[in-house]
């Protein structure tokens, strides 16, 4: 089956093409065309077709009404309850089916590796499949190759699995949206790209996937590109606004890609190959310092894509996209690509490059984990909390990669995180839908009563992320904290990483339960505020349809169970093929410390938001706390800082370039033209019209020439 791995990206690609070229045109053809009447440029239009998707035929719209509707929805998308056209629905079904098939193949491949029954596997435990050659110059190969090994198999599972569920979920979530088909196209595009990314056998393919997921991310963040801007963009409580968010996401990650690409260039120049397997063999011959630098630069790409400090700023804004997108791209898969990248190159990071490479990875990861968690404490937007949580958890993964002997520690967290974070996002999507596109948790509360399935699955995921056994999060996060401790021990008592991760665990538990309580629980709810409470919003929230809650339920299963794979280093063994010595966490005191920290966090959240016995101003009441709160609430003012840099430094320099062009270069150009013209004026003035002047010039010229010649004779003689 491994040989047919190309089917996995091919299936969603096929779905994409079918939707793009077949069902969507059919859908558009079936849509009633509004009649253009004379002078209707600003005229009124009947409602049913007032909101046409991009890609639509040229239609005249009534814009003001449109904008108003947007405002009414608080900047979120609209048109729920509008019917999804038949062909759009067909398209989505095709997409879902393609994903199911892809998932099935992934499962088979996964299983094959599990059983060890993979034909043609090479010494590195994988198989490289040639797709086609881009170009090659002598030994330099630019080949499109896929590589399947256990790491890939795991990623395939994660990507196709979550993607399949999100596709399914989206058929519900996006129902009635005018861009329904477009959504599925872009979603499929993302899936294809992500699969290319994880399947890539070399930097070229990986980079292709890497950039394409960036594109999909951009498109999906900007899915509601025609929203009107919210009134107060700079207020952190305002939901992010898609157009700038998309731009920001793309450019920020590109910034990381700049480093990434240079890293690739260094490696390619030094080794002459892009291939990961060959790189492993070739890098030991490289200059270590250069290699270390290259690896750090490659990590810069990961920093961008995985939203690590200082390039994390785009991810919270990326929440402007539809929630399924947030779940799939900005929680489960794409943002984990950076982690995957480091894991993929782990042999080089750990084995060949200097220790500084992984130290950079670890410290940036650890710092980001803590840093993002602190911001998450203060956010009121449900998706933003989750976004910062994602950043924080990604930081964990990097720490896991940096401190452990194998890449399994970090990867395991990636896998479990994919499950529970997707669950959390999808759950939040249900909530948002239920409360009519409000994302502010202060306007929620007590929703568990209205939507029990969502609440329950969300609770499981929250426990999981908080690191409470036996949920998956515990099994993946605890080893990271534990290894960080060991790492500290091994490095002369440098417990910074441990301290950061452990403290972050506390913060995580706190803010995640803050989120849970503010959304589903609250004072007066059942089970001590855990189940229901006062609903602070408007309207009557309802449980989501089955297409939406079913994925939640399905995701809840790995959220609960996946952790047990970690017992006895099962996951690590699968991934690395080696037998890793396993220490039962429950035999270690450290584990209990970790759990205790988490429990304290949960308890604090419970006291403040569950039963609300502690005032919310507990920490912010005093001036220092208030200041800290302000700083955290404004995300350390980093957006403002970056904005200022762009506005004044980058655009300033750019303006400088332009002014240089206009005044210096063109000044020279126009100046010389003016000079010649002046010369022309002067020289034509010499034509006085007096014939005797002309004669004088003639004979004067004769004399001058005569003198020159005579002097030349004297000089040459």
């Amino acid at each position, binding site marked *: 089956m491994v040989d047919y791995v190309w089917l996995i990206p091919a299936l969603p690609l096929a779905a994409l093409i079918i939707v793009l070229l077949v069902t969507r045109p059919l859908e558009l053809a079936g849509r009633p065309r509004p009649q253009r009447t004379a002078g209707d440029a600003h005229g009124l239009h009947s409602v049913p077709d007032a909101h046409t998707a991009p890609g639509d035929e040229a239609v005249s719209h009534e814009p003001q009404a449109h904008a108003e509707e947007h405002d009414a929805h608080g900047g979120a998308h609209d048109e729920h309850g509008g019917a999804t056209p038949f062909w759009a629905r067909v398209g989505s079904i095709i997409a879902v089916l393609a994903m199911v098939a892809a998932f099935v193949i992934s499962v088979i491949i996964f299983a094959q590796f599990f059983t060890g029954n993979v034909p043609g596997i090479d010494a590195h435990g994988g198989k490289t499949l040639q797709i086609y050659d881009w170009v090659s110059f002598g030994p330099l190969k630019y080949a499109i190759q896929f590589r399947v090994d256990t790491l890939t198999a795991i990623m395939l599972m994660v990507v196709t699995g979550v993607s399949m569920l999100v596709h399914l979920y989206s058929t519900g979530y996006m129902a009635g949206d005018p861009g329904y088909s477009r959504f599925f196209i872009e979603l499929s595009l993302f899936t294809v790209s992500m699969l290319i990314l994880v399947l890539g056998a070399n930097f070229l393919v990986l980079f292709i996937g890497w950039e394409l997921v960036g594109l999909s991310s951009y498109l999906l963040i900007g899915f509601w590109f025609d929203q009107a801007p919210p009134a107060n963009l700079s207020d952190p409580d305002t939901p992010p606004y898609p157009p700038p968010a998309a731009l920001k996401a793309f450019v920020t990650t590109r910034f990381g890609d700049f480093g990434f690409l240079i890293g690739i260039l260094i490696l390619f120049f030094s080794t002459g190959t892009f291939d990961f397997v060959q790189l492993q063999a070739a890098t030991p011959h490289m200059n270590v310092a250069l290699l270390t630098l290259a690896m750090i630069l490659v990590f810069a790409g990961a920093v961008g894509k995985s939203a690590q400090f200082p390039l994390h700023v785009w991810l919270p804004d990326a929440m402007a996209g539809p929630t399924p997108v947030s779940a799939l791209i900005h929680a489960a898969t794409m943002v984990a690509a950076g982690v995957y990248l480091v894991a993929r190159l782990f042999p080089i990071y750990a084995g060949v490059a200097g220790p500084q490479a992984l130290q950079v990875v670890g410290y940036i990861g650890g710092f980001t984990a803590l840093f993002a968690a602190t911001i998450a404490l203060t956010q009121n937007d449900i998706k933003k909390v989750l976004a910062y949580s994602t950043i924080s958890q990604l930081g964990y993964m990097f720490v896991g990669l940096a401190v452990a002997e194998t890449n399994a520690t970090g990867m395991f967290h990636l896998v479990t995180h994919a499950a529970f974070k997707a669950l959390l996002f999808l759950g939040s999507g249900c909530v948002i839908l239920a409360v009519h596109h409000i994302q502010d948790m202060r306007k929620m509360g007590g929703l568990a009563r209205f939507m029990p399935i969502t609440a329950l699955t969300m609770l499981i995921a929250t426990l999981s992320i908080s690191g409470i056994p036996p949920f998956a999060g515990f099994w993946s996060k605890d080893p990271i904290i534990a290894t960080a401790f060991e790492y500290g021990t091994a490095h002369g008592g440098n417990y910074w990483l441990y301290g950061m991760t452990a403290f972050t665990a506390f913060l995580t538990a706190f803010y995640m339960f803050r989120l849970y309580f503010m959304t589903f629980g609250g004072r007066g709810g059942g089970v001590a505020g855990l189940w229901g409470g006062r609903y602070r919003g408007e309207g009557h929230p309802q449980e989501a349809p089955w297409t939406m809650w079913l994925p939640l339920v399905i995701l809840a299963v790995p959220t609960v169970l996946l952790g047990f794979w970690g017992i006895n280093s099962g996951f690590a063994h699968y991934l690395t093929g080696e037998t890793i010595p396993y220490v039962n966490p429950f035999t270690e005191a450290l584990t209990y410390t970790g759990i205790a920290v988490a429990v304290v966090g949960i308890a604090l959240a419970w006291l403040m938001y569950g039963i609300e016995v502690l005032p919310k101003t507990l920490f912010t009441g005093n001036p220092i706390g208030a200041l800290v709160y302000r700083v955290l609430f404004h995300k350390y003012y980093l957006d403002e800082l970056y904005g200022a840099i762009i506005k004044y430094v980058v655009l300033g320099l750019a303006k400088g370039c332009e002014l240089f062009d206009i005044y210096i270069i063109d000044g020279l150009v126009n100046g010389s033209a003016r000079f*010649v*013209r002046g010369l*022309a004026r002067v020289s*034509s003035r010499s034509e006085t019209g007096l014939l005797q002047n002309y004669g004088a*010039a*003639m004979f*004067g*010229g*004769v004399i001058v020439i005569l003198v020159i010649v*005579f002097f030349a004779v004297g000089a040459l003689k």
Partner: protein
Amino acid sequence: MTSHIDAAQIWLLSPELSVVLLSFVVLGLDLLTRRKTLVWAVAFIGLIVPLVLTLSLTFNWFGERPTTAFFGMLTTDSYALFFKYLFLVIGFCVVLVSYQYVEKYLLATPGEYYSIILMSLAGMMLMGGTGELITIYISLELTSIPLYILAGLSRRDGRSAEAAIKYVLLGAMSSAILLYGMALLYGATGSTDLAEVAKSITTLGSGNLMLLAADVFIFAGLGFKISAVPFHMWAPDIYEGAPTPSTLFFSVGSKAAGFAAIMRIFVFGGLFAVSSSYLWVLLAIVAALTMTIGNVGALMQSNIKRMMAYSSIGQAGYLVMGLAALAINNSAAGTTAVLVFLVVFVVTNIGAFTGIIALADATGQENIRDFDGLGRRSPWIAAGMAFCLLALAGIPPMAGFLSKLFIFFTAWGEGSGLTFLVILGLINSTISIVYYANVVWRMYVIEPKKRERITVSNSVSLTMAVSVIGVFVLTIVIGVLMTQAASGAGSLFQALGH
């Protein structure tokens, strides 16, 4: 050298002779008939006779032609024949293009006008075909006096008379200096026969001051004809004032004749051979000044004929550069380049002036401003004129580019001393494009104030067609032209035993 004049010698003279006879016929016809078309047609068709006779000389139809006649005063080497053809082409075109203009704007009757032109033409042909100073001088005067008259023929304003008087007085001054130079040359060598001059001149040192003074004076006198700086000052005024077909005639004819004479005297007379080390510097300086002043001066002109005057000064600069290339090694390459350039210049300049005449015929206007929107008012004339102007500017694909390239190429190849001159020339041709393209811009881009179409007489259209096709054909067969020019140039050097 045959000792007495026989039929064969008359045969050698026959092209010029027939032109002169034609001018008599035309002049006489004018007395007999008042039909302008007839006079015009006779003048035009009559020119076929000298053409045929020239062909007969070229291809030795009547037996092997003698090399010289009239005691060495008439030579029919390839160089002379080359110029004969060139002048005949000029004659054809000028006669053709004048048809309407003559009756509209000129003082003279057509018969007088054409006969004067034809006499001048005979003078030009003789200038290329003689190797003796007295004959050159007389031919020059035969060329010039009709030109003075032609300058003053316009009926319309005082500018024409003014042009004529300026022309005649300055021309006389230049004749004086030319004569003085010839006298000195005669004094230095004892002969006015250039072949003998070349022989005896070798005994004089290269730094012989009298010889150099003669060189300078002769160049000054002929420099007036080719409007080289600083002898160029007459050109703008006289171009502007003279009736346009006359302007055309002396912009191409006088210039070509001047170059014919210069090269004949300086090469055939062995002057370059003796004093090239001084003369090329002189020529390089003159070339640099000429092209710069011509091209820069043309930039701000508002009268198109005045602009064309400066343009032709600029073009003369390139030609003088060719002369410098000729002088530096006294080699045939420079001559070839000058000949090629002259041909292309003549053809393109005719085209450009034809456009001016066409507009003048129809509207009487001759400011650059008046060309606004000509592309819409008269597409074909505008296209042809644009084509020729751009060829003058040296923009491909027109032959002007190639001839200019060739002259630069030769100058570059002949000596490192001329490198900077070539670069200056290249810069100048960039400058020149500004004013040429400006006319094109006005014809095509600017919207005309009046939109009615301009009617153009057939003769003008035909001239335009001839010159455009000529330029086009020259582009393709420029290789052939260059070979012919090379043989012409070679014949100039042959006598010297090079």
